[in-house]
Structures are given as C-alpha cells and as structure tokens.
C-alpha cells in the first residue's frame, strides 16, 4: 500500500501540469475562438493557393 504515498503526489504533479497547460492556453488565445479552427483542416489543400493544389494532382 505504501506505493500510494508515491503515486498520489505524482498525480498531484500531473494535475498541476494540466492546470498550468490550461492557463497557458487561455492566456495564448486558445479558447477565444472555438469555431474557426475547426474549418482550417477542411481547406488546407487549397488554402495556400491553386499552385500547390496543382502540384499535388497526379
């Protein structure tokens, strides 16, 4: 059972890390617009202009 004395502090460190990551995300505009980024992958093929799209064509 003594393993919990190691594992639980470890889990607390992980929680602290998760909290820090979340704060970092909020401070770096990651939660300001939750709608637009969802569209970006849909268009990545042609977003950089027709030239790239043509070069990918067989």
């Amino acid at each position: 059972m003594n393993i919990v004395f190691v594992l639980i502090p470890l889990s607390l460190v992980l929680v602290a890390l998760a909290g820090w990551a979340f704060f970092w995300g909020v401070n770096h505009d990651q939660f300001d617009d939750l709608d637009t980024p969802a569209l970006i992958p849909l268009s990545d093929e042609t977003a950089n202009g027709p030239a790239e799209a043509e070069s990918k064509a067989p």
Partner: protein
Amino acid sequence: MPALTCFHCGEPVAGDTPVVARVGGLDHPVCCIGCRAAAEWIASLGLQDYYRLRDAPPPRAVAVGDYSAWDRDQLQRMYVHHRDGGEAEVCVLLEGMRCPACSWLIERALSAMPGVREIGVSVPGKRVRIVWQPQLGSLSQLLGALAHLGYVPHPLDRESLNDVVEREQRTALKRLMVAGLGMMQAMMFAIVLYAGALEGIETSTRDFFRWIGLLVTIPVVFYAARPFFAGAWRELRALRPGMDTPVAFAVALVFVASIVETLRGGAHVYFDSASMFVFLLLGGRYLEMRARHRAADVVDALARLQPAVAERLDANGVPESVGVHELQIGDCVVVADGATVPADGELVSTECRVDESLLSGESKPLLRHRGERLIAGSIVVEGPAQMRVARVGAETTLSAIVRLIGRAQQQRPRWTRYGDRAAGYFVCALLVVTAVTAAAWLVIDPTRAFAASLAVLVVACPCAFALAVPAALARSLTVLAQRGILVLTPNAIESLIRANYFVFDKTGTLSKRGLELVSSLSAGRFTVEECLRIAAQLESGSTHPIADALRAAAGCAEPARAQDVRATAGGGVEGDVDGVHYRLGRAQFASATEVDDDRIVLADSRAILARFELREVLRDDAPATVAELRASGCGIEVLSGDSHARVAAIAGRLGIDRFGSRVHPEQKLARLAQLRAEGMNVAVIGDGVNDAPALAGADLAVAVGGGAELAKSSADIVLAGDRLGGLVEARIVAVATRRIMRQNLLWSLVYNAAAVPLAAIGWVPPWLAAIGMSLSSLAVIANSLRIRVGAPGTAAPAPAAAPDLTPVPA
C-alpha cells in the same frame, strides 16, 4: 426560370444585364460590381474555399469608399496604438461579420497585405485586432481591404484595445477550470475516506488523504471562490447581505471546519463538498456571463452610428476628409449618398432625403429643404447634401439620446432576487441555531459539542438554498438561448413574469421594414395587371420600398426597364413605357388635380390610370403574439414616432385600441413613468435607437434582433431569432422557472427543517450530514433540469416551424 441569386452575397440578381464573376474557371452571376470585385479578389488570393465553408452569406459588397482620411495624424492619435519597435496596433469593429468562415477569410486576406504582422479576429465580438508596420502599409489600405470583402470597418478608439470583456471571460474560464479540477481530485480522495470509514483504514493513511484533500482544495477556495468572497465583502460593507454572503460563509465554514477536523484528527472532513459547491455555482455564473457578453455595448453601437470621418469644404469649396472631432460650428460639410450625417446642422443645398428611422422611428425617408435641420446619425438617402454644422460632439441629438439612456438606467428599479433575502435570514437563523446547539451541548456534554454543532452547520449548509435560484436560472437561460432568446440581465426572468403591460414600438417591431400592395383600383382604360406592369417597369431601377412592393405585386422580379426614367425626390418617377409617357408617385406629382393622400397614383399625360394602396407588412407572428398576451390579461399599447394614420392602421389590424403617434423618446419615457405610477409593470418591446431610452426606463426591456445595437445594449432580453413569438415562449419558460425555483426553495426549507433538529440533538453523525448536504444540492439541480419550453402543465404552444433554433450572436 428560377430566380438567380448572387454568388457572393446571396441576394437576388436583378436587372437584365447580368454581371458575372469568374471564380475557379466558372462564370457565376453576381448582383453588382461590388460583389464581383469581392468574389474575384477572394478567388485571386486562392481563398475560394470560403464559399464552401461559410454558413451565412456576407453582406452585399458595397462600393469601396475612400479611407485615406484615416491616415491623418489627428485620427491616428485617437485610434492607433504605436508599440515599441515601430509596430502599430488598431482594433476595428466589423459590420457584417457573421460566421466562422468570415473570420477565416479576414485572416487569410489580411495576412496577404504588406506589413501585416498579427491578426486577431473575434467572431462574437465582431472585431479584428491588427498589428502592422506602418512603413509598409497604411491604415487606409487595411480598411479598404476589409471594405473590399464586404465588411464595413469602424475603427474603435484606443481604449478598446485592452479588452475588458475578453479579460473577464478568460478569468472566469480559469476559475471554473481550477474549481473543476480541484473538485474531481477532492472527490477522488473523499471516496477513499468514505470507503475507509466503512472498511477500516489506518489513521496515518486517513490523515495522509485528508492532507492531500486539503492541498487540492486550497486553490479552489483561495483562487476559484474569490469572486464570492469579494462579493460578500462588498455586500457586508454595504450592510445588505445578498447571495454572495451565505455562499462565502458556507465555503469558509466548511473549509475551516475541515481543517480543524484534519488537525485534531476528528471524525470527518468535507473538502469535496466545498469544491463541488464552488464549481457548480461558478458554472452557473459562467453561463450568465456568456449571455451578457453577447450583447454589444454602447461604445460599439455609437461607433457604428457616428461616422469618424467627414468631408469638410475648405475656403475654396474643395472637399477634404477630416475627423469628425475636428469639426467646428459653422463648418461646411458634404454628405454623400448613403453616408451618415456627422453632426447636427442645417441643410445648405436645395433639398435631400434623409432616413431618420433609427433615431425617430419614422419609417419613410424624410424630405428636407434648404435651412432645415439634419441630425447626426441619420442617413442621407438621396443626396449628396451640403450642410452647415450647428452642433458637434456632446451637443448633438444623438449624444442627448445616449445621455437619456444613461439616466433611465439609473432610474431602473433594482429587483432583488427571491432567494437573496431569504438566504440572508437563513444564514442568521443558522448561526443562532448553531450557537444554541453548541451552548446547550457544552452544558450537557462538552465532548460532543464540536461534533454536534459541526453537524448542524454542515447539514444545513445553505448549498441547496444557495443553488435553488441560480440552478433554475442557469437552466432557463440555456433553454431560452437554444430558442434564440438571449437573456442579458439576471432580473429579466422575474420582470417578465411580473410584466402586465406591454408597450410595442411599431416600425421594425410589429411591422417589418417594407411595404405590400393592399388594393389596386384601375380607372378603367387598362386592367389592373397592365397598370401594375407599367408601374413595375417604371420602378425597375429603384431600391425604394414602394418600388419593391410594386415589383413584387406585378409578379416579375426583373421587368423590362422603362425609357428615360427620372426620379423626383418627394414625388415619384416618370418615364416612357412602350412609347407613352407615364408618371407614378404621390397624387400631386402624378396628376396636379388630385388631392394628396397616402396612395400611389399612376397617370399618363391626360388622366389617372390607377391607384395603388400600400401598407406596411406585419411581422408574421405579431397577431398571434398580441393575441396571446391579451389572452393572459396584459395591457397592450403601441407607441411610435410615425404618423397617426400609419400607427392607427397597424394598431387596427392587430386589434389594439391604445396607441400613440409621433411620440418622441422623452415622451415615451414620460408615458412609461405615468403607467408605472398607475401600478403597471411595463415591458417595452422595440428595435430602434429612438426606443433605447424607453427600453432603459422600462421594468423589462425587450429588443428585437436585427434592430439597432444601441437598443440591444439597453435591453434585458434580445429576441435574436428575429421572431416576436419568442416573447410568448420566454413567458412560458419564465413561469416554469419561477415554479421550479419555488419548489427548490421549498425543498431546501423542508430538508433543513427536518435535518437541523436531528443534527442539533446529536443524532446525525457528520458523514451522514455531508451526504445529506450533497443529496439536497443534487435534488435541486435535477429539479431545475425539468425546465423546458414545453414544460409539463404549461401547455406550451408548439412553435410552428421556428426558422432558427441556434442562438444567433447578437
């Protein structure tokens, strides 16, 4: 042939000369040159995916104006923030931004501009923050590019760069997250302790878990719950205990008691209860805040109404673009067709037509002659107009209206929440009971005093009490938002139930903007259809509401255009159809012998051919809404700035017998004061800027979506789906909310009344008290989830084909 719609803006393509835009190797029809330029520019940047991604068409692209005035130093000083390193930053409000694809398009298009370093688009805030290098590109180029895309850019002054709303939202999100994480951790460790209490656990292990629980609860109490402590401190200093006081008290109490128990190795700790309580309350507040932020604030609204740039004539009569704040009394200003009047003044040119509908509620563009007054914020419809400035800045009528709003908002009666006062009493009573328990046990058996008084505190912890109102309110906000009804102030739900007198504005609220043909009377030479066809041809090039109505009635969207068409401001149009000269318009214009009434007359050079009677179009759900409100015993009145005949016509069609016409904003406010003096709870429903003071002074203010932003900023409820019927639905939900709230309060009262005496006589061990507290809170939340539009027992009318169920950002 199906009606063509514009590839870019989705509006019907009119006229027989199709404009086409070449996008992706195909020709697409567009409605105007502006839209063609926008579509081809978007395509040239390789961004044609925009047309696939968007879910709402952009506004019709307008001819790109001249933004060079924005490069003047005086203007830049007010609007542009110069950072270290030679970069400049500006915040621009964009009219016409509607969906995420807009933000995508703006980002891509602007990043192709020279010198642009950073772009931050906020769709809910409708603004974009641009950081760029002024040596490489000017502000006017950036604004021009935005206008090119079809958005109307309004730079905001420098203060808006440090966005208060954004900071508030971010802080709230962080607090919610901390509370959530802390709650999960504390519950996990609490389960160990509960299991240990049943199965047996070593004291050292138990204490270890208690210390860990304390550790994860510290951030919740000291960071996440800080708004409650700050609020309680404010309330206590003002000697008016509200909702924050019992909440802060409960959190502090449970936390301190748990620490004491941890230190002295007592029977039970309650860290999980404390953090769960904080998390649930923060969740409710977060929802409330999101709804509030959806409304644009007064600053945004003013930015749209008041132009920042004016065309001033210098001594030689040459126009020069200057900032509006540079205008002096006596300056001569030119206002172009479709532009906004920059200051109050008098007309110098012969005549023009202005649209004052936003300011006065008058639905028709008004004719102004030389020497007559033009007011800031109105729009010149037929111009250009030349005017002499008489009043600037804070002296203008527009500023006076804004001041009226401010004053009316101060007069607004403060509604106190049901739960607030009750919870205040409850906390006092609880403290007394605890003190009595402790005192009694100290006399009887000092060893049990602490456990018993703690059980009383925990079992009666005002959690259920504190959650009773917010849980029901948060649920009703969510339900209403799903139906396109945005509740912006916390008191709106209560005010909606109490409101028993509804004052409607006419234009834009009961009626839509636009006209319809009621009757046509032919003089006999032609049939009615032929007359309509002639009229439609005469009006084929016009965008006036009368023209739209006549074209719609003639049944042809693109009639052949008449020859030699000439329009006379305030009269009508004349032109040749099939070689015959016709005149169409007001009776005096069309045929000098006629008496002038509201009807439109078609005449040739000899005699009158037909009379058309037009009327305003009622909103589809206006009759049902009015009938529904009347059926529930509410008084209904129409107050409008429009003419008597028009108001009477609309009131008559809806069966409303009380109405007032030509009512100024101040008179509306006075009428409201009179009604309230008679003991009425008055709700005002409006959409225009002229309604804004009345909205701010009403017990309940409802703004119809699509109206002026200024009206929305002083509203309690915004009907974003643009349906008046939302008012009836909101009433149903409000009544359900009140019922649920009362049940919640009753339940927590009954629970406490039963549990407290048991705890006081020492029959409830603290662990049972903790379970009881959690269950009573959960019961309150579960009960609140029963609120919906079709709540049982309310006989909700199924909304027939609600056009839009998703909440539209206001």
